[in-house]
C-alpha cells in the first residue's frame, strides 16, 4: 500500500518536476514565464500529433527500431512545439519588451486552447478512420521499464523472494526513461546553475542585467537560451503525462492545473532544481493522497487537493518575512531590460 502510494506520487511528480525545472531556468534569467501551463499542453499535443501520424502510417511496432523511431518522432515534435512557444515568448518579451505577465497569460490561453483544439479535432482534421485519439502503441514504447522488476514481483508472489525486496525495487526501478531523465535534468540544472561559470552568468543576468551587460555579457542571448531551454524541458513534462501517465489517451483538459502547480513548485523549492525533485514528489503525493485515506468524503477530497497551494503560500510568506537573500526570487524577475533606460 505505502509502496504503491510512493510509486503513484513519483509518477504524479514527474510532470511537475519537468515544469518547475524549466521554469526555474527561465526565472533565473529574470523572466517570469506564466506561459508554462500552455507550453506543457503544447509539449503534450506536439508529441501526440507526431505519434498519431506515425501510428496512422501503419508502421510495424514489433520491430525494435520502429519503436525507437516512434519515441524519437514524438520527442522531436514535442520539443519543437514547446521550443516554438518559448521562442514566441522570448521574441515578445526580450526583443519587443512586452509585459511578461500579459504575454505569459496569453501564451497559456493560446497553448491550452491549441492543445485541446488539436486533441479534440485531430481525427476530423486528418480524416483518419479511428474513433478516438489513443496512442496505445507509442505509449507502450514510452512507458517501457526494466523487466526484472516484474519478474521479481512475480517471484515474490510465488514466495521465492522476500516481498519487501520486490516492493523496494518497484519503487526505485519501475519507472519509464522519461521519469529518470527528469531527475537527471534537475540535477544537471542544479549543478550548472550553482557550480559553473555559465550558471553564475545566468544568475547575474536575472539579478541585475545592467551590471551583467556592463561586464560584457550578451544579456539577450542568455535570456533567449534560458527561456527556450526552459520551455523545452517543461514541454517534456506534458509529453510524459500524456504518453506514460495517461497511456496515450488524450482527454480535454486532462492535464488540469498541473502547469500552475509547477509554477507553485518553483517557489516552494526556493528556485533550486535539486530541492524541486523532493518537492515534486511531495506535491505529487499531496495531489493523490485523498485516494489513500479511507472513508474520505467527496468534499474533503477537494480540500486535500488545496494543500499544495496552501503549502506554497506558507513558504512564500515565510521566505519573504525572513528575508533570506538566497531564498528570494531573482531581483529583476518580471522586469524587462532595456539598455538605454535610465
Amino acid at each position, binding site marked *: 500500500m505505502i509502496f504503491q502510494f510512493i510509486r503513484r506520487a513519483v509518477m504524479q511528480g514527474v510532470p511537475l518536476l519537468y515544469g518547475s525545472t524549466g521554469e526555474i531556468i527561465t526565472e533565473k534569467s529574470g523572466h517570469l514565464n506564466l506561459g508554462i501551463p500552455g507550453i506543457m499542453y503544447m509539449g503534450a499535443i506536439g508529441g501526440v500529433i507526431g505519434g498519431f501520424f506515425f501510428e496512422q502510417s501503419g508502421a510495424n511496432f514489433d520491430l525494435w527500431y520502429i519503436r525507437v523511431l516512434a519515441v524519437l518522432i514524438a520527442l522531436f515534435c514535442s520539443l519543437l512545439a514547446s521550443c516554438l512557444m518559448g521562442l514566441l515568448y522570448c521574441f515578445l518579451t526580450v526583443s519587443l519588451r512586452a509585459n511578461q505577465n500579459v504575454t505569459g497569460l496569453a501564451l497559456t490561453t493560446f497553448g491550452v*486552447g491549441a492543445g485541446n483544439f488539436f486533441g479534440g479535432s485531430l481525427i476530423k482534421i486528418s480524416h483518419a478512420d479511428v474513433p478516438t485519439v489513443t496512442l496505445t502503441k507509442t505509449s507502450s514504447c514510452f512507458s517501457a521499464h526494466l523487466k526484472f522488476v516484474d519478474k521479481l514481483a512475480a517471484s515474490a508472489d510465488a514466495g521465492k523472494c522476500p516481498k519487501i525486496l520486490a516492493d523496494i525495487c518497484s519503487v526505485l526501478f519501475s519507472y519509464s526513461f522519461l521519469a529518470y531523465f527528469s531527475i537527471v535534468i534537475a540535477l544537471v540544472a542544479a549543478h550548472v546553475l550553482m557550480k559553473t561559470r555559465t550558471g553564475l552568468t545566468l544568475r547575474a543576468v536575472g539579478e541585475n542585467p545592467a551590471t551583467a551587460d556592463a561586464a560584457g555579457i550578451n544579456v539577450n542571448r542568455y535570456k533567449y537560451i534560458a527561456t527556450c531551454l526552459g520551455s523545452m524541458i517543461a514541454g517534456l513534462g506534458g509529453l510524459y503525462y500524456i504518453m506514460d501517465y495517461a497511456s496515450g489517451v488524450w482527454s480535454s483538459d486532462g492535464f488540469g492545473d498541473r502547469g500552475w502547480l509547477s509554477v*507553485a513548485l518553483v517557489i516552494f523549492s526556493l528556485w533550486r532544481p535539486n530541492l524541486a525533485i523532493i518537492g515534486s514528489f511531495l506535491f505529487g503525493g499531496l495531489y493523490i493522497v485523498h485516494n489513500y485515506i479511507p472513508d474520505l468524503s467527496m468534499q474533503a477530497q*477537494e480540500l486535500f*487537493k488545496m494543500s499544495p497551494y496552501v503549502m506554497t*503560500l506558507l513558504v*512564500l510568506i515565510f521566505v519573504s518575512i525572513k528575508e533570506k537573500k538566497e531564498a528570494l526570487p531573482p531581483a529583476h524577475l518580471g522586469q524587462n531590460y532595456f539598455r538605454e533606460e535610465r
Partner: protein
Amino acid sequence: MTDEKKHKHVREPLIHLAKRDNLPRSKALLIRTIAIALGILITCVFGFLIIGWSPSRIVHAMLDGTFGTENRRWDLFEKTAILLCISLAVTPAFRMRFWNIGAEGQTLIACLTSAACMIKLGDKLPNPVLLLVMLVLSITAGMIWALIPAIFKAFWNTNETLFTLMMNYVATQITSYFIYIWSVPKGSGHIGIINPTTHSGWLVSIGDYPYLLNILVTIVMTITSYIYLNHCKHGYEISVVGESEKTARYIGINVKAVILRTMCISGAICGLAGFLIVSGADHTVITGSVGGLGFTAIMVSWLAKFNPLAMSFFAFMIAFLGKGAKEITTLSGLDSSFADIVTGFVIFCIIGCEFFINYKIKMRRKEAKHE
C-alpha cells in the same frame, strides 16, 4: 593617427533602438488597427489551412454567431459587460504596478458567497433584502480575498504575482468543497439552477431584457472608475505609487495605506462582478463560473493601457472573438477551444505592436555621411 584610424573602424550596430516619447494618438491607433487586422488575417489563414474554410465564410460565421439573432446580441453584450467589470477591477492595482493576477479567485469566491446566500437565505428573506445582503457579502468576500495578498505585500514585500496566483486555486478548491456539500442530488458534484421556481436572489430584469441591468451597472462602473482614476486625488496617488514608491513617500503619501486601499477597491469590484455573474446571469455556481475571465481581464486591462474607456472596446473585441470562433466550431463540429487560439493570435499581434508604439528603430546611417 592610429587613434583616428581605429575610430573609423568602430562598427555601429545595424539597428539601434530608442525610446519614443509621444507618438501622436492617430498614429498609435493606426498601428493597433493594423495589428488587429493582422491577427484576424492569421486567423483566416489558420482557418483555411486547418478547417478548409474560405476567409469570407469564417468572417461571415463570426458575425452571424455574434450579431445573427437578438439572443446572440444580448449574450454578446452580457459577456462583454462581465469581462469589462473584471477588467475594471484589476486596473487600479495595475496602475499601482501591483500585479494582481488573482481576479479569477476574487471573483469566484464572490460567486460562491452569492450562491451561498441564495441557498441558505433564499426562503427566509424578502427578495430586495436578500439581494442587498448578497451584494454586500459578495463585495466583502472579494475584498478579503484581495486584501490578504495586499497585507503581505505592504508589510513584508511578498511577491504579489505569485501570491495572488496561488489564491486563485485555494478559491477554486474551496468552491469545489462547497459545491459537493450543496450538490443536488447529493454527491453529484453540481448544484444546478438555484431557486428555479421562487426566483429569490435572482436579479430583477428590466422589461424583457434579462441582462440589461448587468450591462447598465457595468456602464456606470466604467464611467465611475474613469473619473476615480483620472480626476480624483486617490487616482493620482495610485499613479505616483506606481511610478516610484520613493517619490510617493517623499511627497507624503502613505504607501502602505494606498496599497491596501487600492486592493480593497480591486477586490470589491471583483466581488460585484461575481454577484452579477451568479445573481444576474448564471443563477448557479460551478468551479468554472469565472471561466478564465480573471486572466483574460488582465490582458484587456493591459491592452487598453489601463484606460477604462478603451477597455470597453477591448472587452467587446475579446467577447466578439470568443463568441464568433465558438460559432465556427459549432458549424464545423470541431473542438470549441478554437476560440482560445483565435483570441491568442489577436492578442499576440497587439502585444507585439506595442513595441512600435513605444520604440523608434533607427537604422545605421551610411558611412559616407560621416566624412
